[in-house]
Each structure stands twice: as structure tokens, then as C-alpha cells.
């Protein structure tokens, strides 16, 4: 059985990637399971989707703990522990990263036991939540890496899954998928199936199983105010709003009122401050600031600047 995980951000087409790959497997005569996995998170939040494909009926359910192939559409996720990109990687798992950097850099950086491949990223985009065609490219690359999906089977799967879109958009996606397929052709068949396991051998994942308690204790009552601040929604952000305090005219209310997430507070002196732990990067403040005192920079640049100690 093939077990494949796609990691990306909400909006980058990971669900579509898993569906395309699933359909392509199906056309090649496989039993298939594909599903996106996300919780309450939204656009920009780290999500993943997964595909199982086998010649026999698939009895496994749930997330893939031991993947044969992991594909990362957005390299900025690799460093985010909560995204779980590297979870369950072993010496036989292939990791493919859609990146501007090369294989040597990623191999050195990650020091993994298994092979690391890079799908050269197409173009630089400021807002990584809008990587053009990232999902289709990842599906195309995965199709060739498993080695059992023919090129025309991939094309048919893309056309099938995107059928409701305008013809021109479908054609663009087909071209992107086939380009990725051809680009990774040297590694065709690198991903190997792992044996199907019987339910007898099931090992529960290493999470805590909550024990049933008396309802008085286990009822989900929250006894504190505004605990949501413990959730770091700043991880969703792909663009960072930055205030130019020389241009800010201390209007008092515009950015702070329009920010849906209560992420901009104003000091007693009328100076706005952005809470980057929670700002999701919607950029309403950038659009609404009357003197245009708020600009947008790619989040990756802001993180790099923080690492090198340069002022952002």
C-alpha cells in the first residue's frame, strides 16, 4: 500500500492535490482513499491531505502515521513544528519539498535518514497562501514518484477533478502537473509501497487517550476569560503588516477597529501596536489605513530578518 501525505496551507490546493492523485491511482486500477485533514483552521493555516492506494481493499483509516512519501507545497511549513511535516518519516520515506533552495541545502538542514527531493518552485510570490498551482504541481510530482501512474492517466485525473473550472484554467493546471511529472521523471518509482498491515498489528498513535470521567468533571466548561489568546493564529500569516510610525497619524481607531481579530491595540498615546502572535495576515489594516502607514512584507522575510538580527 502507498501512503502519501501532502502538506500545505489552507488555500494552496492540498485537498485538490490529494483528489487528483487519488483519481490517477484509481484510473491505474488501485483502490484509493483520499482525504483532507483540517480542524477549525482556515485559509493560510497549516493543513494536510493524504492518499492511500493499494491493489487490495484498504482497511486502514485515519491519518497516515508512517508515510512512504511526504510532499510539502510550502517550504515555510517545514520549520513549524505544529505543521507536523516530518512526523513519522523513516529511512524509507521520501520527502519532496517545493522550494527555491536546492537538495543539498535541505538535506543538510533536515539531516533525515531517507531521501530528500526538491521540486523547483515556479515563481516567487509574496503571499504564500496564493502559490499558483502549487497543489497541481505537487500531484504531478507525486504521480511520477510512485512510478505506477502513466502521464496520460495524470492528465485525465486533473481534467476530471477540475472539471467545473473554465477550460483555460484546466489547461494551465494540466500543463503544470505534466511539467512537474516530467521534471521529477529521473526519480520515477523511487517511492516504494509498504506492506499492508493487519488490524491485529495496529499500534495506537502516541497521543493521550482521555479517560471517561463523571460528567460533572468532564463537561467541557471553560472557567477563564479570553483563553483563545493561547492559540497562536499568527502561524497562519504569510504576509506581515508593518506599521511605519513616521507616517502613522495616530488616528486612534481605523486599524484597531477594522482588525477582525482584536490584534491591534492603541496605547494611551494613540500609537497602534500589532500583536504578531495572533495576526492572521488578512491585511485589512493595510487596505484601510488612511495615510497608508501600514505596509505588507512577506512573513518569510520578517522571520529571516529576525534570525539574522536585522531590523525588519
Amino acid at each position, binding site marked *: 500500500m502507498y501512503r502519501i501525505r501532502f502538506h500545505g496551507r489552507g488555500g494552496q490546493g492540498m485537498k485538490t492535490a490529494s483528489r487528483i492523485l487519488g483519481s490517477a491511482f484509481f484510473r491505474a486500477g488501485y483502490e484509493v482513499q483520499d482525504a483532507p485533514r483540517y*480542524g*477549525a*483552521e*482556515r*485559509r*493560510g493555516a497549516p493543513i494536510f491531505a493524504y492518499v492511500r492506494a493499494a491493489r487490495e481493499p484498504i482497511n486502514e483509516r485515519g491519518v497516515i502515521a508512517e508515510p512512504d512519501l511526504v510532499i510539502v507545497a510550502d517550504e515555510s511549513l517545514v520549520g513549524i513544528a505544529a505543521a507536523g511535516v516530518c512526523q513519522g518519516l523513516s529511512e524509507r520515506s521520501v520527502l519532496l519539498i517545493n522550494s527555491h533552495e536546492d537538495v543539498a541545502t535541505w538535506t543538510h538542514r533536515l539531516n533525515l535518514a531517507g531521501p530528500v527531493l526538491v521540486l523547483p518552485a515556479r515563481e516567487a510570490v509574496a503571499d504564500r497562501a496564493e502559490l499558483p498551482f502549487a497543489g497541481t504541481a505537487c500531484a504531478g510530482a507525486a504521480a511520477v514518484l510512485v512510478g505506477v501512474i502513466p502521464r496520460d492517466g495524470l492528465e485525465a485525473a486533473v481534467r476530471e477533478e477540475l472539471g*467545473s473550472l473554465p477550460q483555460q484554467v484546466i489547461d494551465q493546471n494540466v500543463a503544470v502537473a505534466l511539467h512537474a511529472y516530467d521534471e521529477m521523471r529521473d526519480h520515477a518509482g523511487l517511492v516504494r509501497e509498504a506492506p499492508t498491515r493487519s488490524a491485529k498489528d495496529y499500534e495506537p498513535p502516541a497521543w493521550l487517550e482521555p479517560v471517561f470521567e463523571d460528567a460533572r468533571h468532564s463537561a*467541557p466548561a*471553560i472557567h477563564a*476569560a*479570553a*483563553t*483563545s*489568546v*493561547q*492559540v*497562536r*493564529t499568527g502561524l*497562519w*500569516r504569510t504576509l506581515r503588516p508593518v506599521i511605519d510610525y513616521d507616517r502613522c497619524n495616530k*488616528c*486612534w*481607531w*481605523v486599524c*484597531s*477597529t*477594522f*482588525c*477582525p*481579530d*482584536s*490584534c491591534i*491595540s*492603541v496605547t494611551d498615546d*494613540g500609537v497602534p501596536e500589532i*500583536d504578531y*502572535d*495572533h495576526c*492572521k*495576515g*488578512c*491585511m*485589512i489594516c*493595510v*487596505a*484601510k489605513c488612511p495615510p497608508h502607514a501600514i505596509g505588507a512584507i512577506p512573513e518569510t522575510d520578517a522571520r529571516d530578518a529576525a534570525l539574522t538580527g536585522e531590523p525588519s
Partner: protein
Amino acid sequence: MKESVLKRMKDLPSSHLLGAGTPMCAGCGGLEALHEIYDQVGAKSVFVNAAGCMTLLATYPFTPFRGSWLYTAMASAPAGAQGVRDALDILIDSGRLPPDEDLATVVLTGDGAAYGMGLSATSGAIERGLDFLYICYDNEGYANTGQQASAATPHGAQTSTTTLGYAGYKKDLFGIWAAHRPTYVATVIGAEPLDLARKVQKAMSLAGPRLILALAPCPTGWDFDPQYTADVGRLAVQTGIWPLKEYVGGEVVHTKAPKQRLPVEEYLRLQGRYAHLFEAGGQAGLIDEIQARVDAYWDGVER
């Protein structure tokens, strides 16, 4: 009734009560309205929340609220509010809760519950004169599950269940409420924060059934870049598509009526759900129809 003390933008609060870190989408127009509303409602409140996008606000063990929150099924938030209100009243009457610790009973639902599934429970609650504030964030579809059409979806808008454009017409929830002769009904939008704050303040100063109906531009469901949430909201007002108004004492008064309405095209064009209206050979006639309906509404107001 207390007149609003909010005279100008600078009277709006500069720090906000609603906690950050909610799972709402980036640029959520409903959350934009709710955080402005919550500053006026305050922490001494019980939010009774029907299933919808904002169910996710309080995902255990996290909540952005500083007061209480209770979750109900989609159709039954007003019934839940009745129970909460009754319990508070009994506690106060029996001396077990000091009157100054009373809490405002607030229902929070999306348009799926407010315009559709929950309408029967709402009608009953208004009829019984329940003392509650109903907040509806109207994102014109079942946005939490992928923007299926609801009874609040406007004519011609694409949703995941109406890919050729919604054939029905948006229900007039303001009119449905007003026909019950409740204490107060108002439409608001996060993009007009002063108008919103005044209305919520007025609603909070009154007793009985009260509705704050907020149009909630939805970047995910309406298909526009999240940075334009406030701009889309402002255009909804300036084109006359979303009339800001209030019903109080049997009268409907329009607040911020646009002096010169912009063409509806300017509002529609920003949103992917109307893209099919602008395609060559598409349904261009629909734009004229939408414009005509807006014009007819305002002709009726101005007469």
C-alpha cells in the same frame, strides 16, 4: 431610552474585549462586526450560539469571550436563550443572585439559523417578549460548511449548491422581525463602526426582543481577497444593497442612507461569486435586475 454618547470615531474604544486567537478565517467580516459589537455588549453577558461558523469561536478549552457562552443546535438558540433568561430571573427573584450580577442574554447565529432553520424558535421568542439581544452575522450562505445557499443568499450569487447563481431572493429578515413588533431591530455592518456601535448601545439600553443584523462580507464564501472585507462592506452600503436602518417604536428610520448611490456593479465586481455576471455572453441582464431591485427599494424609502 438613552441617546448614544458616541459622537465621533474617536469615541470608539481603542482596546477590545473579544480575545484574539479565534479560528475564524483571516479577514472574517462577521468577526469584524462581532468584535465591535462585543465592545458595547460587554463581558456581563451570556452568548447562546447556534451551530455555524462562530460555533468555532469557543473550541474547548479556548474561548474569546470574557463572559459565558452556551452552544445549541442550529434551530434552537432562541429557545436556549429563553432558558438562560428564565434561570437568571429565577435566581434573582429568589435572592440567590444579586440583581447587579444579572447578565445580558445574547443569541449569536449566522444567517442559516436566523433566516431559515431557527426562524420558528425566533418568532416564538419574540412573541413571548423574551428579553434578549439577537446578533446575526449574515454571510449569505452556509459558510462554515463551504458556502451552500441559504435563505439569505442574494439573487444571482454563486454558491457551492447554486453554481449557476442563486435563483431565489434574499429573505427580508429585518421586515420579518419588524412585523412581530419587537422592541428594536437594526441592520449594521463592521465597515461602519460608529453606526454599529450606536445601534448596539441603543439596543443594550432597551429591554425585550432586539435584533442586530450584521452583513458579514466573507472572503472565503464570497471569493474576494481578505484585505477588502471592509471595502466590500462599505460598498454594500454605498450602493444601497445593504440599507442601514433601525426599527424602533413602530418606525423604520434609515441611518447613513447613501446620498448618491454607487452602481451595484462596483460592489458585485469585487466578488468572485458574481464573476459570471461579468463574463462575455454571460448573464449581464442580471446586473440590471439587481440594480432595478435596489432602485425600487430606495424609491419606496424616499417616497
